[in-house]
């Protein structure tokens, strides 16, 4: 279980603001192993979204190094980052971020479209992924014909369909009621347990974070605490 998937060394990120640089991340050091289920918590403005963007290869750090799956990614071009995201990372967002007027099936196929996988294979894998989130019979529905929980499950299917080792979930339950939130979190737990997917969850809700095996708290651009969730880690 010492297979390091993510290694951040002294990651800093600053934005120019009114003539001087505002430092959002002040030297983050972090290692995440294959198969972990990590929750990143922190108040708004703490820098957790910025950290999430860098971890998700949507943004690059101002300084520091980021090794993802054995490859340094801190200085890659936009297209190279796009490829990393496509191959290594599945995203689940708070606002679901599905394409409108596009069926669940086609939404799930999308990462494979950009991976250049042929149509038949795409369809087969997408149906399988939808099946694993329990939405096979809804695959031809468009997002506006699905409930919030169902939309989020489509998004999860999209995140796992390309066999990406990491799933980033940014406030995945933010727009859902308690019952649906529990369903979604159970699904993440299942993916982590049964498929050994590494899950990185960003949330500000304590009870959601408790689904994770490790909880990292960010305050003011620095890691404030990083400890295993005793209740889950032992399982």
């Amino acid at each position, binding site marked *: 279980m010492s297979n390091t998937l993510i290694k951040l060394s002294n990651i800093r990120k600053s934005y120019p603001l009114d003539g001087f640089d505002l430092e959002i991340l002040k030297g983050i050091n972090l290692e995440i192993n294959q198969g972990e289920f990590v929750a990143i918590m922190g108040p708004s403005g703490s820098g957790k979204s910025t950290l999430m963007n860098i971890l998700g290869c*949507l*943004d690059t750090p101002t300084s520091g190094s980021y090794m993802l799956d054995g490859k340094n990614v801190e200085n890659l071009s936009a*297209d190279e980052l*796009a490829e990393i*995201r496509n191959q290594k990372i599945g*995203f689940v967002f708070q606002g679901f971020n599905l*394409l409108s007027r596009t069926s669940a099936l086609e939404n799930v196929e999308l990462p494979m479209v950009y*991976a250049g996988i042929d*149509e038949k294979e795409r369809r087969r894998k997408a149906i399988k992924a939808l099946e694993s989130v329990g939405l096979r019979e809804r695959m031809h529905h468009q997002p506006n014909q699905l409930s919030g929980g169902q939309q989020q499950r489509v998004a999860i299917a999209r995140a796992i369909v390309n066999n990406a080792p990491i799933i980033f979930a940014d406030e995945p339950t933010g727009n859902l009621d308690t019952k649906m939130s529990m369903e979604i979190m159970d699904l993440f737990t299942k993916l982590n347990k049964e498929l050994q997917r590494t899950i990185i969850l960003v949330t500000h809700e304590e009870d959601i974070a408790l689904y994770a095996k490790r909880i990292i708290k960010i305050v003011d651009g620095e890691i404030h605490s990083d400890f295993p969730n005793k209740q889950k880690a032992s399982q």
Partner: protein
Amino acid sequence: MTDLRTILSIAVRAIRANKMRSVLTSLGIIIGVAAVIIMLSIGNGAQITIQNEMRSMGTNLIMIRSGSSTSGGARMGRGSQPTLKNGDADAIQEKVAAIRLAAPVVNDSGQIVYGNTNWATNIVGTDNRYFEIKEWDLAYGRVFSQTDIRNANKVAILGQTVAKELFADMDPLGKTIRIKGLPFKVIGALTARGQSGPGQDQDDMVYIPLSTAQKKVSGTQFPDMVNMLMLQAYDADSTYTSQSEITALLRQRHNLGLNKDDDFTIMNLTQFMEMMQSSTQVMTILLGSIASISLIVGGIGIMNIMLVSVTERTREIGIRMAIGAKRWDIRWQFLTEALILSLIGGLIGVAIGVGGVYILPLFVSMSAELSTFYVLLPFCFSGIVGLLFGFFPAYKASLLNPINALRYE
């Protein structure tokens, strides 16, 4: 890289999501392409009309006219003094290799009379080579015989206009007409040729043997002189290349010293035709260019709508980027959309333009002629316009930052 089918289906979906807008966007291209096709076809029609006129005049023609005379210091203009002789035609035909045939021509005009009708027309004295040069067949009757020429017989061959004006529905063959008061027997009539330019009716002529014209009709004080030689070269190039040879030969025959001007003028009718043709070509290009402007305006319409579309779909672009779309994937998506809009517009424009070319002559007296090239050209141009004006919005979309794009409301 995404496959073509997927790119196309994404673009078609986006276009169908905004049907009304897509139709209105394409309208600019539709009007542009239709306008270009109609304009080019009008120009093409004019060109074909000229080509037909040229063909009716004969091909590879050279005209040599007698030089100017000088009378008391006043130069009298081209052809005012006959300097060319019958023998010049034979000499050119014999000695200049590029010339197939040469016919001597005496021009005159006068009143011709049959019964109580009369008609003012052109009288042309020549020999049978003239008809050969102009590749002109008889409608009926016969051409001049050797005897006609040797004896300067008073026989005439009528142009169709003259035949119609004098004889109406009657058969002119064998009838006697009076040309400048002298009786002539009609031995034949030429087929109709029509106009050779504005107001020049090639059929309004009466032809008589050269010898008859010189000795009996025109009554010039220079027997054996002709106003003009009509030559036909073997091909179009020879009409240019043979000129210096003809000039040298005629100068020698006319005993012109080195310091003397030519006493004749060579006119290359092929050159004249080519000039006419190039001027209609210029007109075609001009008409086409003006119409193309509307096509370009249509392109700007596409660019405008694509920019709106990129802004509206910022979030979609963000999702695609987060999931792994590279910059060219995004670019191709929007370029394809612009291209489909413009090509569909182009197709409809072709249909309207082609229809317009058929309908147009019903309303205005203009000959418009379609040609494959003039239909394909604006269609391809519409595609180029789509690519050109689609590129900027597509480029803009591809430069979006996925984080900001995802956050866009």
